[in-house]
Every structure is written in structure tokens, then in C-alpha cells.
């Protein structure tokens, strides 16, 4: 797996997105749950470089919003700019404190403007909450639910697929029937039903874990089938027989000879499953079955677009969708790169593989 250009672009973009989302506290100017009822449904704050008298400056600045008390609310829209005083944008400012991964606390934010102005990079929603901050925190939920559900699915799939392929017999027959059952089920319907069968109103952490469990447990079938295929073809090779001759136990054979062969299958499945599972979480949240308010999730943010006035006038609410598309494109480029790699390896190989 050499780092050719086909790999680097998607890997870098995914790494950047995940890093930013992980450090949501640092990169988001505001707390995602704080409501600003004076400035709801505002478009993204315009960042200016040219001052009122036409000079180009080094430091960008913003104007205060009418709703925040800068102009007479009766005369102007709450989201209109009050062009009287510019407020410079500072970087690495102190703001509300947050914690990183539950371990460290900090109160430095990437950027901010001095109070009482606000910088809403992606506008506000109908409660006046900063969409950009909610996007980052919501990404934590959506992206990591997808990742963890994939880990669950793949672990189950590798375990059951190896069991079925290596030992055969009854375990194989039963697991294969299970696979056929799970592959035949209508995915979204079952996800919905399964989510329904579990408590609807629980705390955010429990819901998060529940989502991961539900999504991950439904998807073990296809990886299991592929892993079983690899295990079956590896099982009969002479180097396993040779190892048995030296007195190797089953566990040793699995660990040293069989499982390394499954690595490429597992990686390709991971690249395929992660975006599907992220989408599953977003869909469930969209339908109201995900993590409940006030914890943000990309799905619940997109769900507001079902309201007429939001759909028609608040175009900035589409941003979670855009980031989702970016994530998808990256994963699809990644799996394309993997496919090309395996194709090249296939051409280059001969009787040795």
C-alpha cells in the first residue's frame, strides 16, 4: 500500500475533516446549544476586508447585527448589518470553555469577535444557534457513530466469517443461513423498526451507543460472507498443513496464517461501510430517531429544511449536506484507490499468490 497520489488526496481530506470535528471545541466559535433569540435565521456573517472608507486592511472585520441591539429593531431586519462600528476578527481568542475528548479543558477558540458582536460563519438556525458550531459538534456524532458502527460490524463479520470458514460443518451452515437472512432484509425498514423497538427517550449518550449498536449489528452479513470466502481458500493451502506438522494449534494458524489474508477484504469493506453507516445515522436523526435535542447531529440539522420557510430562504442550512457529500467523495476516492491497488497487485502476481 504505497502512498501514491490516488491515496493522498482523500486521506488528507478525511484526516482534516475528522481532526476538525474532533477538536470541535477549538474550531467552533460558540457553544452549539446557546440560543440567540435575537438573531434567528440569519445568513452567514459577512466578513469584510475593506473598511468603510475604502481602505484594504490586514485584519478582517464584521459588523454587528441589528438583532443584537446595534440598531433599532423596529427599523431594520434582525439580521441586517449595522455599519457603524467594525469589530475586528481575532484568532486564538478566549471564549467559553470546553473539553477535548473529555480529558483536557481549554477555552481558546480558533477565532472570535469581541462582544457584543457575533461571527456566525454559517449563519444561525431558527433558535439563533450558530450553525457552524453545530456542524462541528454534530459531526462528532455522525462521523464517529459511523466509524464505531463499522468497527462493530467488521469485528462481528470477521469473527463469524472465520468461524464459519475455518471450522465448517454446523457452525458454517448456521452462520450462512443467518447471512442469507440478514442480506434479504430491507435495510432501512429494519433499521427503523429496530430503532423503534428500543426506548425512544433516553439520554444522548445512551442513544448514541444504541445507534451504534443498531446500525452495526445489522450489517455484519456481507463482511462475514467475504471473510468466509477468503478463509475457505486459505484453509487448504500447504503452508497451513506445514505449520500443523510443526504442531501448530488452531489459534496459531488463525492468527499467523489465516487472518492476515483477510486484511485487504476488511479494509475495502471498511471504506465501503463507513460512509453507509454515517448516512444511516444521519437518516435516523433526520427522521427524528437519533440523538435528541439539544445535542446537534447533521441529520437533525437537515431535518429543519423540511419546513417551508427554512427551505426557501435559509440556504445555509444545507451546509451539513455539503460536508456529507465531501466525506462521501473522499471515501469513494479511497475505495477506488484500493481497488486499483488490488487490481495492480493481481496483474503483477503469478504462481506465488
Amino acid at each position, binding site marked *: 500500500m504505497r502512498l501514491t497520489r490516488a491515496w493522498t488526496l482523500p486521506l488528507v481530506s478525511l484526516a482534516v475533516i475528522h481532526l476538525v470535528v474532533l477538536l470541535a471545541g477549538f474550531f467552533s466559535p460558540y457553544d452549539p446549544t446557546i440560543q440567540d433569540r435575537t438573531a434567528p435565521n440569519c445568513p452567514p456573517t459577512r466578513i469584510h476586508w475593506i473598511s468603510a472608507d475604502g481602505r484594504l486592511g490586514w485584519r478582517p472585520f464584521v459588523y454587528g447585527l441589528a438583532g443584537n441591539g446595534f440598531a433599532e429593531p423596529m427599523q431594520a431586519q434582525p439580521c441586517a448589518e449595522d455599519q457603524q462600528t467594525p469589530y475586528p476578527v481575532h484568532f486564538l481568542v478566549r471564549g467559553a470553555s470546553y473539553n477535548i475528548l473529555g480529558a483536557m479543558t481549554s477555552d481558546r477558540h480558533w477565532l472570535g469577535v469581541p462582544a457584543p458582536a457575533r461571527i456566525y460563519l454559517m449563519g444561525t438556525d431558527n433558535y439563533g444557534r450558530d450553525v457552524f458550531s453545530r456542524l462541528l459538534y454534530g459531526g462528532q456524532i455522525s462521523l464517529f457513530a459511523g466509524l464505531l458502527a463499522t468497527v462493530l460490524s467488521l469485528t462481528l463479520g470477521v469473527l463469524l466469517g472465520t468461524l464459519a470458514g475455518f471450522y465448517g460443518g454446523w457452525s458454517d451452515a448456521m452462520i450462512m443461513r443467518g447471512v442469507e437472512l440478514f442480506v434479504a432484509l430491507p435495510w432501512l425498514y429494519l433499521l427503523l423498526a429496530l430503532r423503534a423497538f428500543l426506548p425512544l427517550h433516553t439520554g444522548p449518550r445512551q442513544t448514541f451507543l444504541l445507534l451504534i449498536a443498531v446500525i452495526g449489528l445489522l450489517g455484519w452479513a456481507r463482511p462475514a460472507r467475504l471473510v468466509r470466502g477468503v478463509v475457505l481458500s486459505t484453509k487448504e493451502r500447504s503452508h497451513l498443513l506445514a505449520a500443523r*506438522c510443526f*504442531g501448530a494449534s488452531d489459534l496459531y494458524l488463525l492468527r499467523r496464517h489465516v487472518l492476515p489474508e483477510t486484511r485487504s477484504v476488511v479494509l475495502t469493506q471498511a471504506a465501503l461501510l463507513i460512509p453507509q453507516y454515517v448516512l444511516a445515522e444521519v437518516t435516523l436523526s433526520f427522521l427524528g430517531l437519533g440523538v435528541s435535542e439539544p445535542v446537534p447531529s447533521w441529520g437533525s440539522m437537515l431535518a429543519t429544511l423540511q419546513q417551508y420557510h427554512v427551505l426557501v430562504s435559509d440556504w445555509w442550512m444545507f451546509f451539513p449536506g455539503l460536508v456529507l457529500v465531501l466525506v462521501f467523495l473522499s471515501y469513494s476516492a479511497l475505495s477506488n484507490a484500493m481497488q486499483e491497488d488490488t487490481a495492480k497487485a493481481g496483474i503483477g502476481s503469478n504462481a506465488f499468490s
Partner: protein
Amino acid sequence: MLTSSPKSEPLLRIEGLTKTYSQGRWWEKRFEAKALDGVDLALQTGKTLALVGRSGSGKTTLAMCVAMLEKPDSGKLWFDGCDLSSLSMSERAMLRPRIQLVFQDSAAALPARFTAAEIIEEPIVIQHHHLGSANIAKIKDRSALVRELMAKVGLPPGWANRRPRQFSGGERQRLAIARALALQPSLLILDEPFTGLDLSVRGQIVNLLLALQADLSLTYLYISHDLDLVQHFSDTVAVMDRGKIVEQASVTDLFRSPMRAETYPLLRQALSACRCAHSHG
């Protein structure tokens, strides 16, 4: 069969070994294949017994049974006086290092992802897993052993970090032999080890095996489907057909006056191959 050997007791003695393979679930008609149908064989220490027969005559099955990779249905197998069927699992595990197998297709028998050093030391690593922490060989000792074995089979020790696909066919087979020697076996089963090697390489491997036999007093069970190299490489020949040993004699006797009809086509094939100097496999 009877030669002037210092030990009167054969290293390996087989009596009436049978094995049947059956396919099919319990509600389907079973398809049975008799691989071994009452095999009797004796192998003297320090000698080479060639087991010859057409494909499907049961040679590989016999090798598997001797190496304890398969369990025969009936019959007795004595190794160095021990009756293998009467041994417990742990006793059999103790005996494993003494019987080793060199496979036909070296490319498949050597794990592609391991380095040469890892391949050779794998038997030792596995044995130490079994024996527990009491006898763990240090890494330095292991690499010393690996280098020694590589030198013994004629491979440059500097190649210890290469992977099997970087070796030629003959070199891979040397690697396989080195691995088989790691546990200091008494009996080495060679299952058609010269397949796919061209003539000059075959000669080199044969010489290597003969040298190792003299040096380490090894006993060889050499399995082949043609009588080509048998002349140069064995003391006794046993001809196998459809699961039975049909003829067993010393090499010279067999080539001069074969007794059974099954041996004729094999002999003819071997002699014509010698003339045409083509490689088999």
C-alpha cells in the same frame, strides 16, 4: 528390502493401513473413495524408500498418515517402536518434531508474507508456544540457528530477510528443506519435491539431500509418480497402485526385473524420460 543395516528394527513400519474418504451429507448418497487399502511397508533407518505410483494411487494419503496429519481408519503405524495409534495427544505432539514433511509445491508451502528467516524459525516458535515459557529460545539463538540452517542447505545467510517470491524454484525448495530440518527430525517425507524444477537444479537438490542424509543420519520417504530420479536417489522402491503396495524391492532388483504388470508402464515412462531429458511436473 533386507539390507545390511546396523539396526534390525525399521524406523517406520506400517501394517494393513486403510483410509477411505467419503463425501456427501447424511441424506445424500455417499461417494466413497478408498485411498489406502491395506498398506504394508517398512523403512530402515538411514535409508531412502521411494514410494512410486500413478496419480491417485494413494501416495499422498500415506504421507499424510505417516506425518500424523490424517488419521487412518484401521491398521498400525510404528515409528521407532512406538505404536502411533496408541499414543495420547500430548505424546503424539512430542513425536511430531521427529517426522517432517517437504511439500510438492514450494510456492504454496511457504507463506508468502513471511521472510525466509521467519519461515525457517516458525517450527521452533510453534514448539515453544507448546512447551510454554520454560524453554523459550532467545531471538539471538534463533537467528543463529536460522543462519546455520541456511548455510547447511546452501543458501546465503544474507538472504534471511527476503520473501519467498524473490527466490527461484530451487532456492525455495532449499528453504523448505531448511525449515523441515529446524526441529531435527529423524524421518523426512519428501512429497514429489522435484516437481517444476529443471534438470540441473534437480541434480543439485538431490546432491544436497544425499549430503544431508549422510551428515544428519536422516531417513527419507521419497514419494514420486515417476521412476526418473529413483535410481539415483533411493535404496528401496515400493510401487503403489490403487491403495495397495504391489511390489517392493531394492532399486537394482526393480529396474532389472520388475515383477508386476503395474510397474512396466512406469518403468517405460522413466526410461524414455531419461533419454529425452525433459523435465516432469
